[in-house]
């Protein structure tokens, strides 16, 4: 069985992608709403990823 060694960014990116797809599908009632909400969730994940990443980098000096 292969062993993956993903970086923090790669793992968080994949996590965001899969969660956004399922949340978009399950929480909205029309296809355009699903697409918009999925993209919104993914955008929020990415924003939080970069913001918290930079906060930790600046916090550690």
């Amino acid at each position, binding site marked *: 069985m292969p062993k993956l*060694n993903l970086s923090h960014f790669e*793992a968080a990116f994949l996590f965001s992608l899969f*969660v956004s797809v399922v949340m978009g599908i399950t929480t909205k009632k029309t296809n355009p709403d699903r697409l918009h909400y999925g993209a919104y969730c993914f955008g929020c994940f990415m924003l939080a990823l970069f913001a918290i990443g930079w906060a930790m980098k600046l916090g550690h000096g």
Partner: protein
Amino acid sequence: MAAQPQSASSANEASPAINAWLLPVLAAWLIPGAGHFLLKKTGRGALIFASVFLMFLFGIFMRGMMFTPEKGADYLSSLINYGGFICNLAAGAMYLLTTMFGYAQPDMPGDVHDYGTKFLVTAGLLNILAMVDTWEIGTGKKD
């Protein structure tokens, strides 16, 4: 007073038959997205299957830990163990097959293992969302 029996009977009429949603929800637990396929929502079913399956697969490839239902040293540890086990179990056949084939990764330090554990738990949680969505479609609350 006369309105009460009438509203009760209309509530009974409104509640959907159990066989309209029970099989799709069980299928959705066993195979992610299968409930949507049974309800003829193939596009959504395929996306859910791909997302949950890949999430679980990446979790296994990152050597994530499967939780076991055991008492921990304190209340919080027990809560984490039982909660994690329920989330792992929610992944359905993927969880059953991996444990049946002997996958038993111990809890190890390291960010990749830790991400793997989170991926495995989240795959189960996403499948619960998909099961609820299947139930909503089966009962007619959602298209």
